């Protein structure tokens, strides 16, 4: 199968087949990552720019390692110390990078839809590394990959996503991904953090963590952003964690072999109790490792179509 998408802007735009192709390709990439020489020449001569408008060492490093393992030429562009400060528009910045030879642009931006603007106006392939509250496809793909590795099959799993759904790009991408691959998705969080009409994404909405956890196969905890305190969305972190924090006791409501995931970094004692945070750590490390393979697959497929894999 050939990957026909020029860009990866979100999981909403991908079919189940395309998602599976990325996951299958990531498996081969993982094999590369286990070799002594962790490098293939797949993207030799391709210039990839990491255009990160939000500081994110984890995601950026993961993309950078993925690019280097594919032998791409890598340019990291962190706009804080450059043109953007002088008022250059996103589009002008990206056009300059394209003029320097970039053919793949990996973009992280605080505003939803910023990658769409580049996809519409530029010739390069655009890979969304997280935009505003919209999507974070590479995170969702690595979550899917990690779950598939352990559970073998996504179809039929009960997946619970807990926290600030309203502002979470991780949640949106995961909802699309898990739904498309046949899982049942349950959202849980305070009603103030549930986006309007989200049920129309074919998910079930819960306001009680206990109820949502019953029989769960996978639990994805979202990071609660400290600056949301005082925004009227919830009274205090203390109360939030009392009702929506994951404890060992609550986790017992889920299936015995439940997988617990977190996009990191964790707020210990807020969304996860300290003991659960320790439990979850090993999966988080798996997620980090898998993140490189998944990103290699994404870059490889948008840059080459994957026809000669």
């Amino acid at each position: 199968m050939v990957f026909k998408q020029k860009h990866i802007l979100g999981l909403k735009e991908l079919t189940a087949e395309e998602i599976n192709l990325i996951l299958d390709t990531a498996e081969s990439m993982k094999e590369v990552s286990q070799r002594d020489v962790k490098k293939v020449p797949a993207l030799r001569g391709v210039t990839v720019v990491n255009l990160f408008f939000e500081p994110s060492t984890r995601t950026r490093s993961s993309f950078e390692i993925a690019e280097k393992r594919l032998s791409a030429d890598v340019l990291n562009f962190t706009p804080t110390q450059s043109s953007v400060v002088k008022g250059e528009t996103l589009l002008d910045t990206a056009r300059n990078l394209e003029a320097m030879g970039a053919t793949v642009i990996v973009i992280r931006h605080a505003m939803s839809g910023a990658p769409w603007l580049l996809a519409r106006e530029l010739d390069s392939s655009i890979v969304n590394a997280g935009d505003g509250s919209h999507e974070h496809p590479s995170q969702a793909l690595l979550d899917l990959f990690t779950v598939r590795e352990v559970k073998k099959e996504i179809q039929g799993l009960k997946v619970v996503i807990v926290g600030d759904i309203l502002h979470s790009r991780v949640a949106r991408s995961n909802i699309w991904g898990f739904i498309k691959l046949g899982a049942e998705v349950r959202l849980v969080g305070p009603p103030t953090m549930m986006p309007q009409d989200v049920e129309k994404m074919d998910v079930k909405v819960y306001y009680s963590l206990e109820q949502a956890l019953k029989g769960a196969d996978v639990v994805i905890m979202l990071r609660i952003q400290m600056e949301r305190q005082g925004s009227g969305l919830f009274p205090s972190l203390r109360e939030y964690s009392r009702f929506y924090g994951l404890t060992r006791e609550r986790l017992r409501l889920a299936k015995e072999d439940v997988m617990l995931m977190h996009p990191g970094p964790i707020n210990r004692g807020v969304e996860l109790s300290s003991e659960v945070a320790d439990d979850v750590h090993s999966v988080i490390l798996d997620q980090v490792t898998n993140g490189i393979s998944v990103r290699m697959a994404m870059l490889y497929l948008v840059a080459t179509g994957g026809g000669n894999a």
Partner: protein
Amino acid sequence: MRVLIKGGRVIDPSQEIDQTANILIEDGKVKSFPKDIKKLEKESDIQVIDARGNIVAPGLIDLHVHLREPGFEHKETIRTGCEAAAAGGFTSVVCMPNTNPVNDNASVTEYILLKARTEGIVNVFPVGAITKGEKGEILAEIGEMWEAGCVGISDDGWPVMNSKLMRHAMEYVKAYGIPVISHAEDLNLSAHGVMNEGFTSTILGLRGIPNASEEVMVSRDITLAELTGAHLHIAHVSTAGAVRLIRDAKKRGVNVTAEATPHHFSLTDKVVLSYDTNAKVNPPIRGEKDVEAIKEGLKDGTIDVIATDHAPHSEDEKKVEFDLAPFGISGLETGLPLSLQLVKDGVLTLPELVKKLTVNPAKIIGIDRGTLKTGAIADVVIFDPDKSVKVDREKFRSKGKNTPFHGWELSGCVLHTIVGGKVVFSG
């Protein structure tokens, strides 16, 4: 100079006329509806316009435009805005005060009117600000602006959040008999939203503006209009709830009128799905139920007027992240064809539509236009309602190419626009 418009279907709701007739214009005024024109046609000093098979109506009046001058001439000028109006069949435009400086005192009003007289090819009627700088803090010098020619007051773009101040504004204008035009929006509920709140905003991860944001303010302003007896005009109604509130208020006899824009009855918020900033507008494009409710409101008379809320912006300003793009659609040159779709869809009859674009807006701001009565100033539009036209923003006279309708096939083509007896546009 005389103009003879012959053989058109004359629709003038101010006189309840809908018939084939000839119109003779002399000295800039409607002279007569001559039956026998054989002799007239041959006279040398007469311009004959053959309108057979087309509609002849009073020149359209747009109650809500942004001409951007002074201060934002890169977006639009009075000259280009008037040219766009003429191309759209509008002979009069009512311009909002959010210029720089804000039209919050008589000298700015006079500047706009002077520019309009010297460079504008259609009639320009300014609206003054309710508060100084549209800041919502101190009343602007409304009396002097009225004296200078303002036909209404509004802080358009910025609602007056302070209810007591809004009350006083409504009381104060009663002395001048002009309406208070409300941009109904509760800014706290809007919370820096950039599009309609609903499933689409959820998918896109964009901050939503709930319907309640408009409805809370419509409700407040109706209450204040009841208290003060002032004439309240609700601008750009976008939600089903707002339509219902206005309908109920009218039934109670409250002095309230309302307008809706073509984009609010032609589009749903799905248009934003590709993050198209040309569809970013305030109030936002709403859902299907709202579109239906606006059509219902137009049909039953709850909504008196169709106004474009023409809000031109430069291309650079719109080619940015959705959150950063300014609100607004360039509307003057698509207003009529989009409105004609209401006739095709059976929502309005053609005379009902013309009424909402002529005599109704004229009445609201108390101007002597929007009519073809003998002796009236000869503002006339001649259009072919069936001719199909493909919207091409590159051909807009307006500097603002920001339209979500680019490439749309619409019916309705303006053939001639006549202002004060002078043909200012021929298409």
